[in-house]
């Protein structure tokens, strides 16, 4: 059964004469438990697709179906809990003056959940942080620890879907691998569905089964992980991206 179904999605910013269509016409399907990647250069609209799915961007047309439910531009509180977002910058995504415990309690209060203390402790345990971190402020944590907090905050509402907006690009390389492995474990344990946005093909290939390549607001190709690895992609832009991710290779003459 498909968890996310997107049909002819178009997203725009601004109104009237200054309106720009960032995502033109995008359709895709993500199965339950699947991990779907979106790659492309800056400004191609990949984060905007994610924003529309998460409820951040409301100026869209087309059809979005999440967990069998057709989503409107304005969502109910239970629809919001179905998917949660993890942001790129762990320094900006946690309130600087809330303790970690406060940041994790906040969604529970909004949704009126019970057993709040147990849930906070479980969320911290799930992302591999010690329990006494709940009394700390974000400025006392490293980037990787903060990103773990951001993941814990997203998971605390028990969503079915995690929307990951470049979750590792603000972290240094050794921490990137840790966070990616954490995300991989969590997906297997909690049966989560992922949509991962990145410009880093290596990150996407590590986590995703299928990858959509975006350019100028449309999908140019949806490739499988295998296709990326053995280079049997069809579109020239995808090939350019793959070459780009290999770094500088000396041309054989």
């Amino acid at each position: 059964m498909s968890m996310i179904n997107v049909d002819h999605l178009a997203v725009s910013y601004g109104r009237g004469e200054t309106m720009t269509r960032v995502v033109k016409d995008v359709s895709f399907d993500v199965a339950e438990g699947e991990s779907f990647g979106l790659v492309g250069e800056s400004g191609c609209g990949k984060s905007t697709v994610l924003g529309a799915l998460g409820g951040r961007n409301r100026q869209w047309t087309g059809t979005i179906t999440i967990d069998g439910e057709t989503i409107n531009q304005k969502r109910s509180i239970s629809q919001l809990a179905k998917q949660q977002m993890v942001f790129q910058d762990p320094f900006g995504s946690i309130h600087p003056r809330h303790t970690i415990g406060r940041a994790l309690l906040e969604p529970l209060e909004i949704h009126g959940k019970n057993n709040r203390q147990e849930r906070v402790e479980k969320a911290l345990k799930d992302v591999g942080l010690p329990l006494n971190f709940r009394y700390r402020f974000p400025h006392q944590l490293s980037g990787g620890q903060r990103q773990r907090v951001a993941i814990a905050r997203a998971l605390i509402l028990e969503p079915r879907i995690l929307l990951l907006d470049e979750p590792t690009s603000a972290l240094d390389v050794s921490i990137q691998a840790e966070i990616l492995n954490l995300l991989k474990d969590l997906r297997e344990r909690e049966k989560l569905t992922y949509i991962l946005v990145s410009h880093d093909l290596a990150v996407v290939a590590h986590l995703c089964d299928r990858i959509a390549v975006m350019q100028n607001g449309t999908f140019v190709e949806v490739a499988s992980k295998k296709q990326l690895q053995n280079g049997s992609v069809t579109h020239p832009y995808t090939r350019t991206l793959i070459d780009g991710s290999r770094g500088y290779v000396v041309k054989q003459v």
Partner: protein
Amino acid sequence: MTRSGYFNDLHNWLISEDFTSTRQARLHKAYVAWLSLLANPLAFAGFAVVVLLILIATLAPIITLHDPVSQDLTMALKAPSAAHWFGTDEFGRDVYARLVYGARTTLYISILVTVIVAPIGFVIGAMSGYLSGWIDVVLMRITDIFLSFPSLVLALAFSAALGPGIENAVIAIALTVWPPIARLARAETLTFRNADFVVAAELQGAGMWRILLRHIVPLCAPSIVVRLTLNMSSIILTAAGLGFLGLGAQPPMPEWGAMAASGRQYLLDAWWLTTIPGIAILTVSLAFNLLGDGLRDIMDPRNA
């Protein structure tokens, strides 16, 4: 420097960042703020004067020997002496007692104005920054209208229209003080409006009031508190000005501005009538300004 064991333990517990409870995290923040206040002598002097003012106002009946309103015309216009430290005024009332009770009036006005102005200014400014669009335009134009009048003239007009009296003076001053607070709250809100942590809260389903009160207030509070503290002196001066012009506190209530005004007629013979309340107004205004500057260094993250 040697500390006794208990205080040393307390200090270490407060300074440690390895928190074991929310209470410790909060106390740690307060303690660090206290230490940086101690490290800033001018701000600490301001703080001390403000604390002293509050103490004087609360202990007024204990620390004065004379009634501030009872008249004794045989004792009129006596120079400062052992019995009357700051002399007596034209009705033979003890200036020291009137000064001490006047601290109550001053505190009453400035605290009441602050309590009225802070929530109004914050809600108007934060709503207009958060919601933007036509609400922003309407609220900010109203703010502009209030801002375009000189504040003393506006306060004068309001208290003349409402009638003289201390409550009306409070309302009149409050009406002139809220617009800069609203502007400040709006500017602060705009900087955080699209921050990821606000978007995250929205995606979790937080409503406008939750975001304003839980997420925006803790970030705006430092600059608003600093602004209000710096405003205290202008509130005191405006109140004194209204009192001086006869639109604030009404006789026989002791009020520093009114005291300075009534002493003006006897300036050459009885210098203490104008000088003593003048010095009091100066000291308290200066103290609030110093404290405000110090608080800005302590609380405002951009100055850290």
